[in-house]
C-alpha cells in the first residue's frame, strides 16, 4: 500500500488523534509528541493494517500502546502525578466551573488525576464518542471492564469538576 493512502487516512483522523493524545498526556507538548510518535509507529506498521477494518480504531489502539509504553519506560513523569501547576484549581476551587465552560488546561488536569485505566476509557467514550464494544476491542478488555472503569472515571470527574457543573 502506498504512503499516499496512509497519509490520506492519517489526515482524516489526525485532529481526533491529537485530541485523544491531549486527553491522555499531562501537557500539550507531551500530547503532540504522543500523536507524532503514534503516527510514526502506524506508518511503520501500515503493512499490518487490514483493509476493510476501521483505520481510526487501529490508529487509536496504536496511540494508546505508545502512551502506555512511554509511561512504562519512565521517560515521562508517571501520568497520575499531575504537576502541581496543573493540579491547582482542580477539585479545590470552592466554586468550580459552575456555569462557565471548562478550559482545556482544567480538563487536562482533571483527566490526569484519573487512574490511567479510567482515563483511557473516559477519553475514548466521553470525548471521542466510541461505543463500548469498539472501546473493548481497542483496549482488548472485556466490555464489563470497560463499563465499570467508565462508571468510576465519570464519578471521579464529576467530583473534581464540581457537582453543580
Amino acid at each position, binding site marked *: 500500500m502506498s504512503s499516499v493512502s496512509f497519509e490520506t487516512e492519517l489526515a482524516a483522523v489526525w485532529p481526533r488523534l491529537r485530541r485523544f493524545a491531549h486527553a491522555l498526556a499531562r501537557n500539550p507538548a507531551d500530547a503532540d509528541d504522543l500523536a507524532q510518535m503514534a503516527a510514526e509507529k502506524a*506508518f511503520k506498521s501500515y503493512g499490518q493494517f487490514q483493509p476493510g477494518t476501521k483505520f481510526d480504531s487501529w490508529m487509536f489502539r496504536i496511540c494508546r500502546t505508545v502512551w502506555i509504553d512511554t509511561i512504562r519506560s519512565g521517560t515521562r513523569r508517571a501520568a497520575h502525578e499531575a504537576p502541581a501547576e496543573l493540579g491547582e484549581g482542580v477539585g479545590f476551587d470552592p466554586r468550580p466551573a459552575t456555569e462557565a465552560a471548562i478550559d482545556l488546561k482544567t480538563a487536562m488536569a482533571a483527566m490526569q488525576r484519573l487512574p490511567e485505566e479510567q482515563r483511557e476509557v473516559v477519553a475514548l467514550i466521553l470525548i471521542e464518542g466510541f461505543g463500548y464494544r469498539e472501546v473493548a476491542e481497542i483496549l482488548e478488555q472485556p466490555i464489563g471492564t470497560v463499563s465499570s472503569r467508565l462508571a468510576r472515571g465519570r464519578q471521579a470527574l464529576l467530583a473534581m469538576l464540581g457537582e453543580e457543573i
Partner: protein
Amino acid sequence: MTDDEEFFAWLDGELDAARATIVEARVAASPELAARAVEHRRMAAKLKDAFAPVMEAGAPPPQFHSAKPIEFGARAAGREARRASFGVPQWAAMAATLALGLLVGNLVGGSGETSPVAVDSGRLIASASLEKTLDNGLASVPTGSGARIGLTFRNAQGDICRSFQDGPAGGLACRKGQQWRIEGLFPGSQGQTSDYRMAAGQDPRLAELISQTIEGDPFDSAQERAARDKGWR
C-alpha cells in the same frame, strides 16, 4: 452490570430497547436519578467542549516521504546502457524496467484501466486514457475529468514533451514515434488534484525533471494547438 453501570450505559445509549425502557422508567420515577442524569450529561458535554480547541488548531499531520521519485527516460536509460555494457544482460535491464512499471502502476491508482501508465516492450508508455489526454488535451482548455496537461515543449532531441497531472500523480511524457513515453512519474501528495491547472513548479521533482528536459521556451497556447494539429511531430 451494577445499577451504576447500567445507568451510565442507558445515558450513553448502550442498552437494548427493553433494558433502556426499564431504566428510563426508574429515572423518571426518581428526582435524584433524573438530576444525576442531567449533571452527568452536562459534565460530559463540557469535558468534550474543553478539548474542542485541540481539534481546530495545532500541528498538521506528519508527512512521510517514503515514496521515492521514479525517474527513467534519458538518464535512467543511460545508466541501464552503462550497466549493460558492463555485462548485465539486456533482459535484466528490461525486467527491471518492467518491474518498475508495475510498481508505478500500483502506486498511482491500481492497475488496469485506472493506471495512467502501461508497459510496452519493456518501456513505460501512457495508458489509453492518458494517451488520449496527451494527444488531444490543451492546457488552455482544461477538461473536467481525467488527466490535466501542464507544459508542452521540445527536448534536446526535438521531441515534444508534455507534463501532466493525473489524480495525485504528476509526470512528464515525450513523444516517440506513435507513443508517449513516460519520462518521469511522481506519486504526488494530497491536495495537488484540486488545483485548477498544474504549474510546472508544483512538485519540485517534476519541475526539476522539466528543467533538465526542456530546450527553449514552453509552447504558448497557439503553439500548443498548432503542434496538436500536426500530430505532435
